[in-house]
C-alpha cells in the first residue's frame, strides 16, 4: 500500500476555501485516492474518490495531477460544521483488498 503524507492540522475561517494536500509518491497504477472525514466519536465518512484529473461532488472536489504523486482535497466555503479530521487513503478500487489503513489525518479547525 502506498504511504501517504498530509499535514497534521490546518486552521481556516468560515466561508473560506480549504485545500488539503496529500503526498503519495509510491502510488501504484491500479490505486485510487480516497478521502474520508471523521467527526469526534463518529465513524469515518466517505467523501470522495478519484483516479486522475478532477472529481467533484456535492461535498468536495479532488484534484489529481498527471503524475498522481499527490492529490488535493478542496472544500469550498467551509463552515464550523466542517471541523473534523480528514484522511487521505490510497489503494485499489475493488475486490477484497479493502482493509483501510488510516493515518493520523489532517485535523481541520474552522473558526468563526
Amino acid at each position: 500500500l502506498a504511504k501517504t503524507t498530509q499535514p497534521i492540522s490546518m486552521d481556516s475561517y468560515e466561508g473560506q476555501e480549504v485545500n488539503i494536500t496529500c503526498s503519495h509518491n509510491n502510488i501504484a497504477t491500479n490505486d485510487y485516492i480516497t478521502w474520508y472525514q471523521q467527526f469526534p466519536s463518529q465513524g469515518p465518512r466517505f467523501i470522495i474518490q478519484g483516479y486522475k484529473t478532477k472529481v467533484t461532488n456535492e461535498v468536495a472536489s479532488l484534484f489529481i495531477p498527471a503524475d498522481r504523486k499527490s492529490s488535493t482535497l478542496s472544500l469550498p466555503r467551509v463552515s464550523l460544521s466542517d471541523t473534523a479530521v480528514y484522511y487521505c487513503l490510497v489503494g485499489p478500487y475493488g475486490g477484497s483488498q479493502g482493509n483501510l489503513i488510516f493515518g493520523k489525518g489532517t485535523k481541520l479547525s474552522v473558526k468563526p
Partner: protein
Amino acid sequence: EPEVTQTPSHQVTQMGQEVILRCVPISNHLYFYWYRQILGQKVEFLVSFYNNEISEKSEIFDDQFSVERPDGSNFTLKIRSTKLEDSAMYFCASTLAGGYEQYFGPGTRLTVT
C-alpha cells in the same frame, strides 16, 4: 439513504467477560469490516468478511476475536475474554464492491473495567 447501524451504542463490561457487538450493514452490500479506534488514536483495521468467510485480518484480530454473519442482515464481532486494552470505539463498515468506498456505522463504545 441507507445506513449501517450498530448496537449497542455503549457497552460496559468487566475484564474477562464476553461481549458481542452487533452491526446491520447496508442491505445489498457484500463486503463487511470491523475497525476499532482507541481514544485519541488512529482507526485500526481488524477484519474483513466476504462470502461468509474472513478475507483478511490484522494482528490485532487474535483468537479472542471472532466474526459471524448469523443471518442475512446481522454481522457480529465477538470478544471472548475482554481485556482492559480492548476499550475502544468499534466501527462496522460495509461496501458493495469491496475496495475503498466503505460506509461506516456510528460505532459502539466498549469500556472494559
